[in-house]
């Protein structure tokens, strides 16, 4: 760096961010920086010899040329249009400018940049059902160089709705194995009547890792009928256009537990022996799975003794002692 209009052999002092720079880095009055790295960014000043008059000042920004940018295009509002968004895989530390071009056949299309975020722009479809591919080229340029990337795709392949919204899951009264799930179309999908979505629902009890899946070709609700009684479930829904494109990301997860019967009070043996009245509401087994299978004793002619029945008999027996 030259110290303004100072002669090569003038006596000068250079500073970086207010700190004096050693004379070993000078070539006459020139400052020479070798193997520049990011740490050397900052304000550089040059002062004349003993007077300390400021002769030159500059801000040095150390950066890198841009790497190949990452570009993505998607239609979450088919058939209105699609958007493309981009980012750099690593920062350059200096300002970059981005230029995007969208070509469809011989036609160049306008990509309207979003105010926020700045790395996104929208394209309106001028045609639907075209076999001609779209070619999107993004070029990033900075003071040290430029780089670009190109995406080529069909109209249908980039269609991916946003996830369903307002997913709600509720227990079904008096039914310990059911959960009612309802959701709404993503608000960004402009015309679900003409371009209906289908849905994929997944659910599992929190205590298990394995998901159950259900694909639904219409409607925005579903009743799960095989939930484990009393277990909390996690439920998510995804959406896809009925005919084209790919599945959305999963919706926000919701939790629900199937309806459970209110637990009745257990009457202990001690309480039963204290009472002299003939109470008949002494013992009800909890709503757990029966121990014996009804089907196994049909036609046997023998008395089927299930555990729960045996306990009831014992309780009543104690009552009447």
């Amino acid at each position: 760096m030259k110290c303004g209009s100072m002669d090569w052999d003038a006596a000068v002092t250079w500073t970086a961010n207010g700190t004096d720079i050693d004379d070993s880095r000078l070539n006459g009055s020139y400052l020479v920086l070798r193997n520049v790295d990011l740490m050397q960014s900052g304000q550089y000043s040059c002062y004349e010899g003993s007077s300390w008059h400021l002769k030159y000042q500059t801000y040095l920004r150390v950066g890198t040329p841009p790497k190949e940018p990452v570009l993505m295009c998607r239609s979450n509002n088919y058939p209105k249009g699609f958007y493309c968004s981009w980012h750099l895989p690593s920062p350059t530390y200096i300002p970059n400018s981005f230029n995007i071009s969208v070509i469809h056949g011989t036609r160049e299309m306008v990509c309207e940049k979003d105010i926020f975020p700045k790395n996104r722009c929208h394209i309106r479809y001028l045609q639907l059902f075209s076999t001609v591919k779209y070619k999107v080229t993004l070029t990033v340029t900075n003071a040290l160089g430029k780089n670009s990337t190109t995406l080529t795709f069909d109209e249908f392949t980039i269609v991916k709705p946003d996830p369903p919204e307002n997913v709600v899951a509720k227990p079904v009264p008096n039914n310990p194995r059911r959960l009612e799930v309802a959701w709404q179309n993503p608000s960004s999908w402009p015309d679900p009547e003409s371009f209906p979505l289908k849905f994929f629902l997944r659910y599992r009890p929190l205590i298990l890792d394995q998901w159950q899946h259900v694909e639904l070709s219409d409607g925005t609700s579903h009743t799960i009928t095989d939930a484990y009684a009393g277990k909390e479930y996690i439920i998510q829904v995804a959406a896809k256009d009925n005919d084209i494109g790919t599945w959305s990301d999963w919706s926000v997860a919701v939790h629900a537990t199937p309806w459970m019967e209110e637990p009745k009070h257990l009457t202990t043996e001690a309480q039963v022996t204290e009472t002299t009245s003939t109470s008949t509401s002494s013992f009800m087994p909890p709503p757990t799975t029966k121990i014996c299978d009804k089907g196994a004793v049909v036609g046997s002619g023998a008395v089927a003794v299930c555990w729960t029945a045996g306990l009831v008999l014992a309780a009543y027996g104690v009552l009447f002692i």
Partner: protein
Amino acid sequence: MAAAETPSAALRRRDLCSRGIRLARKMRSDVADLLDAYVERQGLDASASVAALDGVPAAAAERWGEQTESQRLLDNLAAYRAFRALLTEMLEEQREQAAPADAALREALAAVLLQVSAFAYHLEELLRLESRGPPGEEGAGPPAGPRLGLFERKLRGLGVLRELAQWAVRSTRDLRQLAKPGPGGGGGGAAAPAGPAEGQ
């Protein structure tokens, strides 16, 4: 345009549209499989670009959302009648080549041709319901052009199947528009909800 639809006509139209949608979706699935087989058997590159072809109805539509119901039906019918002729021609060419290994391809082509014919008939039924009646078929086949070389014929076949696949999706959408109740329902000519290119 036509007067308000009777309830039975409305029911018939919705039924025809539903069945048509199922036909179109099945056709699309079979055309997709046929396309894969065709590309493989003909030794083509699946990503090869094919320029616009004479006589092959392009599915691409500007202002699709603004089309009237009659326009949709007539465009669809014209397209599938053209595809019927194009696929018949492709089948004949395949038979001339007569490689035994291509028998499966010929069968698949014949099956899709059958579906295209059925769909064209379905559209004619819908047009009759519109009290328009289907237009007469002009000419027996695709326009006669210069005899193409083998590779050019293969590329043309690729183009035909690609456009047919797009048409199958477009027809599904068109029939859904037709099936919708509303001010334009019942054979009216009201425009469908605006699609792309609004304000253009």
